[in-house]
């Protein structure tokens, strides 16, 4: 009798748990496979891109280090310069996207206006819009302007791409803030704007921080749209890596890529720490 009960207990939640475990393991494997491949390739000992490598060494890390500290003349642009551009574009994207997204999130949750539903839809348009078309469209627009833009046009493009993520996070944070706390601040003598600064923004903090970090990551990793908009002396790290691979099939990029993945991991980890569980919506 007791063994029967035991068996049934292990049958019910245990079996589904096992199945779920296998399934999620499989999905996880699919997700990390490219990263694993990349890590393996970065330790390749051969001078071509065969997978799996015939031997292992640290030669590409040495080469990468060498490129980083003393770029040779054959390089169109040093990695250091690309990295500087990337960081600058990402930081500016983060700042501008947040400055737009916080008021937008406030308006989308607090205010009632005509076309609110349409505005919500338009916000997430860059998520479904084909990147190649978006890149081409932006290129046409920027080239038709009477003045030259270099870094700034990358920032504008990246803000467009990052905005849906930031707005989504800020809106989620806004939704949990009742209008009564804001009214309470007003009753205590705060002007409507002061009430937002003193009460609403601090309560939105985790959503805003999550949005900022996401904007940074989106911008730092962006390739397709940037590919249309970069110029020969202003390119981001992903573009720099790609140009190296096409020109010389250089496995050095894998060691750089490992570095970038590490940076991304740290940022995402920081994000989870900041917001706690369930706070971030990608």
């Amino acid at each position: 009798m007791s063994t029967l009960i035991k068996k049934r207990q292990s049958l019910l939640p245990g079996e589904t748990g096992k199945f779920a475990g296998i399934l999620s393991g499989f999905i996880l494997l699919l997700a990390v496979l490219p990263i694993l491949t990349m890590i393996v390739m970065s330790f390749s000992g051969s001078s071509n891109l065969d997978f799996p490598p015939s031997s292992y060494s640290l030669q590409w890390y040495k080469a990468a280090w060498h490129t980083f500290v003393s770029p040779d003349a054959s390089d169109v642009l040093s990695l250091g310069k690309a990295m500087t551009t990337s960081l600058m574009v990402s930081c500016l994207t983060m700042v501008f996207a947040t400055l737009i997204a916080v008021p937008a999130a406030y308006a989308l949750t607090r205010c009632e206006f005509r076309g609110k539903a349409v505005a919500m839809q338009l916000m997430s348009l860059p998520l479904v819009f084909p990147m190649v078309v978006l890149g081409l469209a932006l290129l046409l627009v920027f080239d038709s302007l009477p003045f030259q833009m270099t870094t700034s046009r990358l920032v504008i493009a990246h803000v467009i791409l990052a905005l849906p993520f930031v707005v989504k996070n800020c809106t989620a944070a806004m939704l949990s803030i009742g209008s009564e706390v804001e009214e309470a601040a007003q009753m205590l003598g705060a002007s409507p704007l002061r009430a937002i600064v003193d009460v609403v923004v601090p309560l939105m903090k985790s959503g805003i921080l999550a949005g900022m970090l996401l904007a940074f990551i989106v911008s730092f990793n962006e390739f397709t749209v940037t590919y249309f908009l970069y110029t020969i002396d202003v390119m981001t790290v992903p573009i720099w890596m790609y140009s190296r691979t096409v020109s010389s099939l250089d496995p050095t990029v894998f060691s750089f890529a490992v570095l970038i993945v590490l940076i991304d991991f740290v940022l995402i980890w920081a994000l989870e720490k900041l917001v706690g569980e369930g706070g971030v919506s990608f």
Partner: protein
Amino acid sequence: MSGLILENVEKRYGSACAVKDVNLHLPEGKLVCFLGPSGCGKTTLLRMIAGLETLSGGEIRLDGEDIGQTPAHLRNFGMVFQSLALFPHMTVGENIAYPLKLRGVSKADQQARVVELLELIQLQQMIDRPVAKLSGGQRQRVAIARAIANHPKILLLDEPLSALDAKLRESMQVEIRQLQQRLNITTIMVTHDQREAMTMADIVVVLGEHRVQQVGTPIEIYRHPANEFVADFIGSGNIFPATVLGNGKVSLPGGDALQVPICSSIVVGEKVKMLIRPEDLQLSQPQATAGNRLLGKVTFVRDIGATIETTVECSGVTFTALSTPCQGVGLSVGHPVSVTLPAEACRVLGA
């Protein structure tokens, strides 16, 4: 005139009317209760006084000055919200000091006032506690302390006790009332709980069907309801139809005549509504009909220990009578019974 005066105040949302024709004079230092069923417009009225809603018509004057268009943050009214709306990112002390900080009060004076208020609400040790760590009653007190920190001209309470359990609510009612009397601050409270209104208010404003139904002291409202709505909403009452016979007499649907207080506004032959409170009905063993003593039949007895509620059919009307166990006359369902309706307890309700 001093105090708060509302004149023809009205609020419309599109074509729907939330509240209209409100004319009130709220004297200084009193606690006024807006009492009414949900959806009667009492919260809307409070929010208009607070400045959180715009007026669709009418005027609000405070000590002779029109404040109808003054934004909420310039009115210096304290308000306790239904959700309390404490700032969760601030400590108890920071919450209470917030209105002082906004007005540029020095750090030392802020601190002194916070300590003074915490003493008043007996939460001295909680000053650095985050508000999330407080119990329901403590939060309640902090919300009140914050609302009165800057010596507001008027204190507004929007169903502030609705989140508390019954027992705590009763004691907070007394506590708030005592605090209000000690500070002598004009207070307006919104509630749908008539017991709460009776406990706390100097003046009760009964709101219903988007307008003011009656204004009076709690006992006036209970004893002399102005109309059927008030009679029905306040307490439990037997409301029954009758026809005016003249000479201070009315006839019940069953034909029995009843002596009632003479009321000048009614005319012979008019159909009116009458009110008698359950505790005023007297039941006794069946006796001959005489004066206001009628014969009836018991249809239901609800004995809940402290009180006995007896439902009686009498002259075509169903009455509920309330008695205490020691007044008990040992009635059971189906038995005949004598019902006495004391003339002074019968109320003719304005048509």
